[in-house]
C-alpha cells in the first residue's frame, strides 16, 4: 500500500467508527439527526484526524448536526460512548443542538445562518494576533437561505480571509422537503465564486478527494475557500439512504440495530 492509500484506509476506519457512534447515540432514545451524522462522518474523519491543528477552529453553524462532531470528539477521547448514548435525554450534556461552552463547540449554532459571521470574526482575530490559526465553518444548504450568510461571505472575501474554509453540507434537503422545491440555492459554487471565494464541489464520501480539496484550500492565498460537499443523507446505511432522506429520524430500537449491522457489513466489504 502506498502512503496515501494507507492514510485513506485509516481515515475510512475512523469514518466508520464515527458512523457507529452516531447510530448508537440515536438508538438511546430512538431518535436523532442520524442522516446528518452519517453523511458528515467522512468529512469529520478528515477534518479532525488529518487537517486540524491545535490552534485551528471548527465553527459548527448547523447546530443540529452536532451529533457528527460529538461522534468525532469521541474518537479524540473528549467524550465517552456511555455519555454520548444519553444524546438528547433530560439532564444530559449531550444536547441535540448544544450551546457554546459544551466541550468542542466554540459557538452557539442552531439558530441557523449565523455561524459564518463568527467564523469571519475568528479568522480576523487569528490574523490580527499574527497566528496562522485556520477556521473551518460548517453550514447547511438550508442555511444559505439566510441573508446573513451572504453578508458574512462578502466580508470574508473583502478581508481576504485565506485562513477561512467554508464547508457546505449540500444534502439537498431541509425541514420542509427538497431544498430545490422549498427555496433553490443553486448554483452554490458559482454564487460563492461571485462573492470572492475559491469554491468547488467535492464528493465528501471520497477521502482522497476531501484531502486534496483541503490541501488546495491551504495553498489558496488572498481569498477564502469553500468546499461544497455533495453529502448523501444516511450515507453508509443503505436502508437509510433509501428511506430516511429526512431532516430527523425516529425509529424503534430494531431499526437502529439493523442499521448498525448494515453499516458493519458495508465496512467488511470495503476491507
Amino acid at each position: 500500500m502506498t502512503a496515501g492509500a494507507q492514510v485513506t484506509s485509516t481515515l475510512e476506519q475512523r469514518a466508520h467508527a464515527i458512523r457507529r457512534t452516531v447510530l448508537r447515540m440515536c438508538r438511546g432514545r430512538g431518535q436523532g439527526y442520524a442522516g446528518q451524522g452519517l453523511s458528515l462522518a467522512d468529512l469529520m474523519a478528515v477534518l479532525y484526524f488529518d487537517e486540524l491543528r491545535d490552534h485551528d477552529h471548527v465553527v459548527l453553524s448547523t447546530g443540529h448536526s452536532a451529533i457528527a462532531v460529538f461522534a468525532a470528539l469521541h474518537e479524540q477521547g473528549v467524550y465517552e460512548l456511555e455519555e454520548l448514548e444519553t444524546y438528547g435525554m433530560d439532564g444530559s450534556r449531550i444536547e441535540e443542538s448544544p450551546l457554546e461552552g459544551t466541550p468542542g463547540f466554540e459557538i452557539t449554532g442552531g439558530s441557523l445562518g449565523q455561524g459564518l459571521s463568527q467564523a469571519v470574526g475568528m479568522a480576523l482575530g487569528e490574523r490580527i494576533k499574527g497566528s496562522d490559526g485556520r477556521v473551518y465553518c460548517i453550514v447547511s444548504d438550508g442555511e444559505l437561505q439566510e441573508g446573513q450568510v451572504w453578508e458574512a461571505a462578502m466580508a470574508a472575501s473583502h478581508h481576504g480571509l485565506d485562513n477561512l474554509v467554508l464547508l457546505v453540507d449540500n444534502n439537498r434537503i431541509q425541514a420542509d422537503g427538497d431544498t430545490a422545491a422549498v427555496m433553490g440555492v443553486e448554483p452554490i459554487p458559482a454564487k460563492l465564486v461571485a462573492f470572492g471565494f475559491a469554491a468547488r464541489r467535492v464528493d465528501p464520501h471520497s477521502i482522497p478527494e476531501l484531502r486534496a480539496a483541503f490541501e488546495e484550500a491551504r495553498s489558496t492565498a488572498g481569498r477564502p475557500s469553500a468546499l461544497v460537499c455533495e453529502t448523501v443523507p444516511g450515507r453508509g446505511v443503505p436502508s437509510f439512504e433509501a428511506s430516511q432522506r429526512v431532516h430527523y429520524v425516529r425509529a424503534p430500537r430494531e431499526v437502529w440495530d439493523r442499521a448498525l449491522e448494515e453499516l458493519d457489513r458495508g465496512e467488511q466489504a470495503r476491507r
Partner: protein
Amino acid sequence: MSAVAPPLVEAPFATALVELGRRRDDVVVLSADLSRYTDVLPFAEEFPRRFVQCGMAEANMMGIAGGLAKTGFLPIAVTYGVFATRRAYDQLAMALATGPSRGIVVAFLPGITTPFRATHQAIDDLALMRALPGMTVVDPADATELTAAVVFAEAQPGPVYLRGLRGAVPRLLDEADGLPTREVRSGAGAALISTGLGTQWALEAAALVDAAVLHVPVLKPIDAVAVAAFCRRYETVTTVENHSTVGGLGTAVSEVVASGGLGTRVHALGVPDAWAPAGSLQHIRAELGLDAESIARRAA
C-alpha cells in the same frame, strides 16, 4: 387535580386557518421552511396560490408579508416564536407594524415547549412584542382560545402577534365571546394570574391548593380593569407564564398594579432571568419550579 385528562383537539390552528382561508380570499399564509412543523400544511394544500414558501429566511419573510399587505392582502407569517422575534424584529416592526397596512405573526414553540435550549426557546418574545407600538399580543391557553385567537386577530385593525400551539392541543376552556380576561377558577387558597400555557400549569397548581385563577389571553392591550379588579381582592398575587419573568405577564400585571396604586404584591413565576435548560417540557418545568407542586408551594 382532576383525574380526567382534558380532551385533545388535533391541530386546532390548522383547522382555524383553513376556515379563515375559506371565508376570506385575501388571506395569504407565509412559512420559512417550517410548514410541516407549524400546522400550516392543510392551508397550503387547499390554497396553494395563497401560500408562500419563503425558505429559511425569516427577515425576508416579514418583508414579503409587508409587501403583500401593501397590495391588499392580509398576510399571516408563521414560524417559531424565537425566529419571528429575535431574528426578524426590525423587519417585523417596519414591514408589518408601522401601519396603516398590517399583518399577523403566528409564533410556535412558545417558551419552553421545545427540547432545545437558548436557540429555540422563545422566552422573550412577549416582552419584545409588547414593546412594539400598536402591537396586539396574544398567548392562548388551549385549543378553544387558539381557534378564537385566529378570528380575533383577523378582526383587529392593527398588527397582531399570536403564540401558536401545534399538534394535539388540550381543550380546557369553554367558548366565549372574543378573548376575554376571565376568572377560570375560583378558590380561596391563593390568587394566580396566568396566560398561555401558564394557565394550564396554574390550573394544575390551583387544584392542589384551591386557588383562584385569572386567565389573561391578551397581554397587550391588557384588560387593566379586569386585572385591577382581581388584584384588589388580594394582598399577594402570583403570576404564572411560559416566558421570562422579565417583560411578560408578570411585568404587565405589575404595571397595572403600580399605576393603579393598588399596593398588591406581585410574585412573578416563569422562566427566571437565566437561560433555561434543555429537555422535555416536564423536565424543564421541574428544573424551573414550574411543575404543579412547585407552583402551588410558591404561590400559597
